[in-house]
């Protein structure tokens, strides 16, 4: 799982390079994301912080390669996503990124087990293996007694744990969590965050999008502070102290 092969200079698993994302809203051009640079290194815990309207959701879509930039390049696992067809990108995304959503976003027609099996179906994993692995992961998130329950029979916390299990199904390098505790009470929210921390300790790269400053400060190692579609500043935790850092291009001397 841990691929810290190049010590000192870990691999950049996600890299947004001068990315713009503009929308047309009638006559107006909305610059949802403007000249954004984000670098996520393997094994890191990065938070993208911003209030609503800051371009947080758009940058989340771009980081997750769900959306394509108007200008600029996005590299996923050092591959230029603009070179992929939509379907190939979906495959790559399914393999490299596990999504956790604020709304849990489980498929209501499927049981917990089937929800966790689904991402593996899209990677053509055969049924027996899908089932075995899904069971293992559900045990990991302590839902072994709930595997045959449908989402509407589960509590919010349980649903989010199923969602985490689903995100882990294809053993992705990156977990992309969009307000993972947004719909949970503080106690269940903590349990979910514990899981994310544990995964990070085991080597998974975590990208968390949130509006909750305290959540970001408590769990992340690097925070991108967004405002009006731009990265206002980047801070990084050194020991217990947060220091402002420059973006990766300046950092690497580009």
């Amino acid at each position, binding site marked *: 799982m841990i691929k810290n092969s190049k010590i000192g200079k870990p691999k950049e698993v996600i890299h947004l390079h001068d990315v713009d994302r503009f929308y047309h809203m009638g006559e107006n051009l909305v610059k949802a994301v403007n000249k954004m640079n984000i670098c996520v290194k393997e094994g890191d815990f990065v938070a993208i912080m911003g209030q609503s309207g800051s371009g947080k959701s758009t940058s989340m879509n771009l980081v997750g390669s769900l959306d394509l930039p108007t200008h600029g390049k996005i590299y996923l696992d050092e591959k230029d996503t603009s070179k992929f067809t939509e379907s190939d990108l979906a495959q790559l995304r*399914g393999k490299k990124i*596990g999504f956790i*959503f604020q709304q849990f976003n489980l*498929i209501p*027609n499927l049981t917990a087990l089937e929800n966790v099996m*689904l991402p593996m179906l*899209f990677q053509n994993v055969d049924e027996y293996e899908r089932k075995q692995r899904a069971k293992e992961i559900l045990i990991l998130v302590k839902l072994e007694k709930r595997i045959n329950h449908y989402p509407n029979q589960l509590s919010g916390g349980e649903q989010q744990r199923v969602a985490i299990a689903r995100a882990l*199904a294809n053993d992705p390098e990156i977990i992309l969590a969009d307000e993972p505790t947004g719909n949970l009470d503080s106690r269940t929210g903590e349990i979910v965050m514990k899981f994310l921390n544990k995964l990070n300790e085991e080597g998974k790269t975590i990208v968390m999008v949130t509006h909750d400053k305290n959540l970001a400060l408590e769990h992340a190692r690097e925070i991108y502070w967004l405002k009006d579609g731009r990265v206002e500043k980047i801070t990084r935790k050194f020991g217990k102290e947060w220091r402002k850092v420059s973006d990766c291009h300046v950092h690497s001397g580009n």
Partner: protein
Amino acid sequence: MFIPETKIKIIKMLKDYFILSTKNLKRRGIRSWLTLLGIFIGITAVIALISLGDGLKLAVNSQFGVSSTQLITVQAGGLSGYGPPGSFVVNPLTKEDAEAIGKLSTIELAIPRRIETLNLEFNNKLQVTAVGSIPLENTQKIYELQEISAQYGRLLNKDDTGKVVLGNNLADPKKNGFDKEIMPGASVTIGGEKFRVVGIMEKKGSFILDSAILMLESDLKDLMNNGDKASMIIVKVKNKDLMAKAQTEIEDLMRERRDVKKGEEDFEVSTPEAMLATVNQILTGVQMFIVLIATIAIIIGTIGIINTMMTSVMERRKEIGIMKAIGARNSDIFLQFFIEAGMLGLVGGIIGVIAGITIGYAGTLGINYFIGSETSPTINFMLIFITLTGSFIIGAIAGITPAMKAARQNPVEVLRS
């Protein structure tokens, strides 16, 4: 090696999508199922029609009870009016007509027959029955021509005055309405006169013959007391290649004898084939009509599936977005909706086949009950297979546009809500 492996993969994948689609279908609301009504009605109509239509044809055909292709029937006044043939005719046929026909070169035999409606009394109960005459000459010939034989007792001979033979249903206490079995040796009252039963006819599967009484021509003439008229003339042609010629000859002769012009005939010369053709023509017409209704129903059903699938795509945009986010390709989404639409059609088809067979069965039993035939309903498994495949294909075709729409959904949608 490589190609089979890919094929196995595709089959396995399709199986997964079938399972996924079934799961989605299970959780659908009544609204979606209602849109299946069109497919359901269409398939029901087709299956019921075919299983019933064959039965109906068989039943109707068996009513004529004549398999001889050398037989021609002459009747006065056409087939208008109710009651036995020839009963409401102004200018009835006569024995002399039969004699004249019998002398034609193409004709082997012409036998005048009377059929009258008379009261039959037995066990203090009364039933109206058809009574057919047995001629004093060519007595055995008429049995041969109409393939009549006795199941119990014997048939009538020319000196059996005061005796009768009954149709099979009249002997059966469950069917004859007298609540009592009538067997050879029993005494019955027909038209006020006492007759002795000497035989029961073999079952013919024909409502007409199985409920009829046979008595000698002379007895029937005495009972009716209105002269020597004939209800019909049964004509046997020398050989079956002469049928058309014989028919023309008889028509010419009868026009002359009755003094009518061509095109104004007050009589009818019909061959069994012609009769069957007429009946079958009517049945085919009915079938065509039902097929038309079925087609319209299926078209409506197809539109229904398109509609419900479109709604489903709109409702499940979020779900589609989630699936794309977790790695579903456009083809994965397309397949899922495509198969789901096909399954929707298939469900309509299955319900339709079940309903159709039920109606076919009930209908055939109904026909058997009312006209006393013994047709068994036909179940055509090939037809069922084709119908089910067809309904899946109809559904799947209806699903193409919605499935394409689903596949094109932008995954970003999911994160906006």
